[in-house]
């Protein structure tokens, strides 16, 4: 037998990636070697998630599948070399580099290009399309540069009110630009959604601050007198100021290679293929958006994946055929929930429509049913697409019970639980059925969402089916008798959130009371997991000093001595510097304390000063000095509010639009000492330039000229996250009320050591659910939350000052109970860059043998 045959794939997009993955997965005998010729200079990436690039994801985050695929010896990926010609007689393709590749079979996966309508000025700098990572990166760069140059907010216009146009508008909005969508048609997303849905969608889009004009045909882009885009002109003569224009008016198949090679193309372009994805030349296939299959090109990834799977199957002698496209779509725009699936326009003869609309809430839902009102044919969900994941797999099947029940808001008890048949598709991106997910749980031992995703690939592309995957998994686990334990530890079977409620309602005040009432064993005395958790719960349900009575025994050493334990057993000390604002006298006082106690000093990321190397017995002496100088505890040791970072704001900055420092100080003094499931950090930026990096915080506030935008769920660390928009243009009073409620809702319901980002992912309804609770009081608890925060603010006291005033509490800080004057002899320091640092084990060993190593206790004099 000869060596493997050669498959050449033209195009390096998502469908090409899937084809290679599918073929290498199944071609275990290695009958095909594959060369992928990609025009873009990178590996295939997730174009569907392009918009998430603005939410802080990097090109690497968008990488698809397992990178090891490209290390396979049978796979060659040539990047940055576009194919320029196909010679069907010689069976070769030629690339821009001049290289020629012979093929046994050729797959065209060239995708589409963004169509720019004919208009004057379309080639001006500042006109962008929205198709590739490079497009998106260039758009971001341009907007950022404008923001630095121009005094007014950047105005962006998006041509096209379809799926992509709305995502582009969302991206502009996320960049801090004012976006307006210009839609030629009568309503938004007119290819997927009917007029009623389009109207509801327009209200939702307006609500997040994006303007919409329908029946607006752009005829011309005018140049700004300083160059680049200045304004756009519409067919009716209206002119709109615009600093940047994004064209998202549709796509056209990139079929130029096929045309030049004499292959048949469809009436609206695209390589004509049969149901096996093969063109009129049996050695040439086309897949994805460039293929004209069953008479049309389809601009969605799921049908493209299906074509890739069919082609892989056919190349290996299989008999798969294209079943027809699943054109279900879901808009991926924060705060705007839209889904459309099946026969959304009720074109099936005799089809019935059931519509439920709530214009106040911005909800429009429609189900399309067969003439007997039983079989689901399609639907449109705007404003609340929570039913999408469970309804879409029911397409073409009979719905149990009254169909209208599926349209009522969640929690009104209407919709019956759907028991999906095994063959119902759950993840259309990756073609995963309900049965495959059940199998992964029952047979493959996948007992958490990550394992099920890894095993089945369900939910790994667009993610819209994840709620359903989670539900299916939970149902199967329940049947298996596997309980997904949310128990805090061996002493409590309750989760932290359940325990919080139990303690709050019961009004318990001590650990003994809590363990006797809610513990697994009344004799249990807790552990290092539940004791700090109970201490944290009691701190907000029954506020009191950390060292009061039995509560002292619950604290981790950091909270117990109100300092941060370091690797050698010494502690670090951080006084509060609200908003990062400090007087010269304050700085001098801190400097003198550090100098007198020989402490190593370092500026923290939270705009304050950390002093390291304090012995436990020195803490009260250090704090007496700090309190006398007007400082208070910075709670750097606590699972509690850390800092509110700020930029200098409008008082000094040429660009600032609000006084960010004043707000940061106000917020820091309001929430100081608030104990929570994990540390909480806030940030306040005085303008859209975001110098305080507020979107990297649990709560980030960014000034607008109308008020404050508040973002939630950001963090740095191991899994960095950007905060997402919770509410816009709030005045200071509404802002504080919103943050009050957000923080306490988090404090009440998060898991132990769960920061706000993962909490928002897991809490009922996600970010929208959080918004409903804190903005619209969906749970009716806001009065309670407001009262609880008022009590916190009222009862706050500096816990270090209170400790210094209480000799009983000070007894805890002795080095040795029988020798309180003797410092810990194990501590040893060496000088480095003019300060002290802990000696390494080698340095200690050398000193012990009398070698000339400078080792001393922590009062080491290092400054001459």
């Amino acid at each position, binding site marked *: 037998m000869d060596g493997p045959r050669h498959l050449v794939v033209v195009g390096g997009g998502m469908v090409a990636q899937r084809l290679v993955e599918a073929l290498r997965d199944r071609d275990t005998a290695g009958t095909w070697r594959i060369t992928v010729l990609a025009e873009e200079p990178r590996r295939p990436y997730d174009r569907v998630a392009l918009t998430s690039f603005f939410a802080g994801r990097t090109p690497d985050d968008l990488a698809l599948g397992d990178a090891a695929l490209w290390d396979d010896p049978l796979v060659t990926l040539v990047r940055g070399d576009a194919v320029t010609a196909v010679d069907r007689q010689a069976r070769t393709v030629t690339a821009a580099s001049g290289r020629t590749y012979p093929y046994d079979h050729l797959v065209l996966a060239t995708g589409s290009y963004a169509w720019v309508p004919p208009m004057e000025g379309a080639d001006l700098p500042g006109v962008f399309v929205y198709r590739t990572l490079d497009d998106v990166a260039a758009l971001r760069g341009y907007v950022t540069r404008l923001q630095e140059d121009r005094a007014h907010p950047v105005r962006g216009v998006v041509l096209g009110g379809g799926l992509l146009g709305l995502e582009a508008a969302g991206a502009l909005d996320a960049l801090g630009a004012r976006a307006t969508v210009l839609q030629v048609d009568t309503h938004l997303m007119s290819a997927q959604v009917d007029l009623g849905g389009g109207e509801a969608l327009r209200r939702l889009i307006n609500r997040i601050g994006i303007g919409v004009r329908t029946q607006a045909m752009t005829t011309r882009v005018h140049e700004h007198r300083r160059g680049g885009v200045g304004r756009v002109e519409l067919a009716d003569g209206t002119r709109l100021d615009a600093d940047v224009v994004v064209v998202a008016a549709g796509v056209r198949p990139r079929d130029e290679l096929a045309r030049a090679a004499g292959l048949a193309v469809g009436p609206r372009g695209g390589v004509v293929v049969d149901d096996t994805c093969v063109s009129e030349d049996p050695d040439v296939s086309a897949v994805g958006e460039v293929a004209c299959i069953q008479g049309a090109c389809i601009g969605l990834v799921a049908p493209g994946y299906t074509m890739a799977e069919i082609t892989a199957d056919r190349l290996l002698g299989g008999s798969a055929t294209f079943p027809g496209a699943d054109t279900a779509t879901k808009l991926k725009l924060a705060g705007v929930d839209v889904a459309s699936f099946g026969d959304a326009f009720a074109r099936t003869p005799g089809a019935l429509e059931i519509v439920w609309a709530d214009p106040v809430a911005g909800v429009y839902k429609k189900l399309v049913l067969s003439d007997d009102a039983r079989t689901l044919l399609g639907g449109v969900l705007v404003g609340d697409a929570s039913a999408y994941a469970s309804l879409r797999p029911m397409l073409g099947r009979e719905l149990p019970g009254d169909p209208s029940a599926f349209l009522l808001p969640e929690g009104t008890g209407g919709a019956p639980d759907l028991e999906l048949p095994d063959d119902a598709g759950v993840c259309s991106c990756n073609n995963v059925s309900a049965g495959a997910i059940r199998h992964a749980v029952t047979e493959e031992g996948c007992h958490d969402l990550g394992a099920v995703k890894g095993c089945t690939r369900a939910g790994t592309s667009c993610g819209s089916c994840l709620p359903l995957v989670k539900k299916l998994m939970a149902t199967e686990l329940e049947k298996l008798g596997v309980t997904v334990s949310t128990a805090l530890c*061996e*002493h409590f079977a309750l989760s932290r959130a359940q325990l919080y409620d139990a303690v709050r309602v019961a009004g318990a005040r001590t650990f003994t009371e809590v363990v006797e009432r809610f513990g697994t*064993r009344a*004799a*249990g*005395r*807790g*552990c*290092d997991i539940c*004791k*700090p958790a109970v201490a944290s719960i009691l701190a907000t349900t029954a506020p009191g000093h950390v060292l009061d009575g*039995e509560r*002292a*025994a*619950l*604290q*981790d*050493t950091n909270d*117990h*001595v109100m300092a941060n*334990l370091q*690797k*050698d*057993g010494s502690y670090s000390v951080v006084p509060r510097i609200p908003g990062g604002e400090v007087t010269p006298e304050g700085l001098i006082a801190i400097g003198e304390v550090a100098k007198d106690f020989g402490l190593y000093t370092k500026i923290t990321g939270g705009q304050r000063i950390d002093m390291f190397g304090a012995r*436990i017995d020195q803490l009260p002496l250090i704090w007496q000095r700090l309190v006398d100088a007007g400082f208070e505890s910075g709670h750097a040791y606590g699972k509690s509010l850390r800092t509110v970072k700020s930029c200098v704001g409008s008082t000094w900055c040429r660009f600032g639009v609000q006084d960010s420092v004043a707000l940061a100080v106000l917020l820091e003094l309001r929430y100081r000492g608030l104990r929570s499931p994990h540390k909480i950090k806030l940030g306040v930026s005085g303008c859209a330039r975001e110098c305080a990096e507020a979107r990297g915080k649990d709560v980030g506030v960014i000034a607008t000229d109308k008020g404050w935008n508040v973002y939630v769920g950001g963090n740095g660390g191991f899994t960095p996250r950007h905060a997402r928009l919770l509410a816009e243009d709030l005045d200071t009073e509404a802002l504080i009320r919103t943050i009050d409620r957000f923080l306490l809702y988090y404090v009440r319901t998060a898991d132990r050591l769960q920061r706000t980002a993962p909490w928002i992912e897991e809490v009922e309804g996600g970010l929208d659910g959080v918004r409903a609770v804190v903005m619209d009081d969906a749970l009716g608890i806001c009065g309670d939350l407001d009262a609880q925060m008022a009590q916190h603010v009222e009862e706050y006291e500096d816990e270090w000052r209170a400790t210094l005033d209480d000799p009983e509490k000070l*007894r*805890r800080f*002795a*080095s*040795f*109970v*029988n*020798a309180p004057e*003797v410092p*810990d*002899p*194990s501590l040893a320091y060496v000088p480095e860059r003019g300060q002290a640092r802990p000696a390494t*084990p080698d340095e200690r060993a050398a000193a012990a043998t009398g070698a000339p190593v400078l080792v001393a206790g922590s009062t080491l004099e290092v400054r001459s």
Partner: protein
Amino acid sequence: MTTLDTDTTLDAAVPAPTWLAVCRLDDLARERGVAALVPDGPHGRLEQVALFRLVDDRVLAVQQHDPFSDAYVLARGIVGSRAVDGAEVPTVASPMYKQVFDLRTGVCLDAAGKQPVVGHGPDLRTWGVRVVDGTVEVAASTGGAS
């Protein structure tokens, strides 16, 4: 006079312990530890000992040195209990990397996925403790080999 927990099985060859008064029971908070300096061995070298007062006023002593971090910190750990073979065992968790130790025997019950530092085993040394008329006394072995 109350004598609590003098649970030290002394070999006949080892001299009887010298009971050293270190503090008053009232100096100890329930379910917290303190560090004490106790002479150890024939040369009277001072050893750091961690003393813990349990909720039932028993006092137990283990080494202050944490074998997993090489720092002298165990007295600052959280005191709790763990069900071991049906019995409620008093424990302390290291404040550094959260290893859990049986306070009665010093045995490491949970290494939290870590190894002790070179030259140390995972388990802790223990000391006998008794409370006499409200005074806490530690069994200091000032005589024979340790």
